[in-house]
């Protein structure tokens, strides 16, 4: 197997930086703390540049879709125009007296009346999608877990629904509260515990150079 010097160097840097950052959390040494904070600051800086790269990547992918006339190219055109328009508004804002920085009046208007409104509309659709998904689920997979899932979902929905005056809730409100406070919390903690162990294992695989997402 051919070992490239570049890959060894990348691995050494990644493992070294990872170890310093990790030890900076556990060992109370000023040098380690300063190094950790500095490395995290550099990472934040790189992440900010990556947002710009991400926008460029988005534009590149949609330009290609437009120029090749791929299905849905019209939406790509709309996306590129919106991207350039928003960028133009941000650049022009200080000269037009709309304020400066990301919170200028023009950007705030776009976020409030375009992005937030569109986001809210899409979020509103989620409810209907979930109802359909629940219906399909009942037809597709029949299992004990599924029955428990559906019964818990129905109890939670009915337990939360406002009932007309004089209609007894048959103890569903208390049952919903118990479901939310005992089994749901216990299950959620179990899931989080498993996820946390998975996160630590993934981090350790990088530190032990088992996974190298930065090269071969």
């Amino acid at each position, binding site marked *: 197997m051919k070992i490239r010097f570049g890959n060894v160097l990348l691995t050494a840097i990644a493992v070294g930086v990872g170890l310093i950052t990790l030890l900076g*959390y*556990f060992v109370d040494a000023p040098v380690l703390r300063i190094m950790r904070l500095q490395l995290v600051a550099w990472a934040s800086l790189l992440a900010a540049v990556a947002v710009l790269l991400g926008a460029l990547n*988005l534009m590149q992918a949609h330009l290609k879709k437009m120029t090749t006339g791929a*299905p*849905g190219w019209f939406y790509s055109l709309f996306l590129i125009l919106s991207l350039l328009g928003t960028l133009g508004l941000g650049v022009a804002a200080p000269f037009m007296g709309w304020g400066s920085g990301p919170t200028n009046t023009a950007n705030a208007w776009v976020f409030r009346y375009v992005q937030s409104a569109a986001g809210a509309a*899409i979020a509103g659709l989620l409810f209907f999608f979930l109802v359909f998904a629940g219906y399909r689920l009942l037809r597709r997979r029949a299992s004990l877990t599924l029955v428990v899932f559906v019964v818990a979902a129905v109890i939670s929905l009915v337990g939360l629904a406002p009932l007309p005056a004089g209609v007894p809730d048959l103890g569903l409100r208390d049952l919903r509260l118990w479901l939310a406070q005992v089994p749901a919390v216990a299950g959620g903690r179990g899931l989080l515990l498993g996820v946390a162990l*998975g996160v630590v*294992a993934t981090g350790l695989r990088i530190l032990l150079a*088992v996974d190298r997402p930065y090269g071969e």
Partner: protein
Amino acid sequence: MNLTGLGFVLLFAGLMIAFMVLGRRRGARPPAFRPLEALQSLPATVGEAVETGRRLHISLGTGTIGQADTAAALAGLTVLDQISEVTVVSDKPPVVTTGDGVAALLAQDTLQHVYSRQNASERYDPTSARVAGLTPVSFGAAVTTMVKDDALAGTVLVGSVGSEAVLLAEAGSRANITTLAGSLDPAAQALLFAAADYPLIGEDLFAGGAYIGRHPGHVASLRAQDVMRLLVGAAIVVGAVLKTVGLL
């Protein structure tokens, strides 16, 4: 000094190294995994994509590298690396989406290396790994349209994603394609349990590397996770008993 935290990490790392060494011994038994429908269905989904000449969509979700959901995106990259080994040779290579610039760069790098390993570097297209949207809702909306526009054969979502994952699963269901999805967020896991064909629950998200590629490092990592789960579980039970009898 936080000795408990350091000890936990050292014990975890020690177990991983020990399992890696044990796994590489001559005559070591092959790993036996518990049945996991989502990951066991993956070869069929990948095979269908290759045979039908359609694209497989691999999504790393909206997680940001450098934040709390980094590990989920890295788990997604592992799955991407292993699936794309098989699919890059097909007529339609996989398309990868993320909601983060760094994750997109890492996905491009991963794909480029896979093409290079397959001696097909000339076929690599940088736009096959792309940022679908920089906010959760725009990401959800973008991947929804991709299902139809890119004639996808299936979607594999391994990463951090919120309720917008339902949009993707629903679009997949309407197009009659398989959706396998998992997220770090427990609320999103509950939604995906209902909406996805094959949901990944809890730490299943991180098991892809061991189940798909059987890489010794990933298998060792999974075994170490199991041991640590038992130890943490035992510690919780002992702690509860000690607290109950007033010794803590």
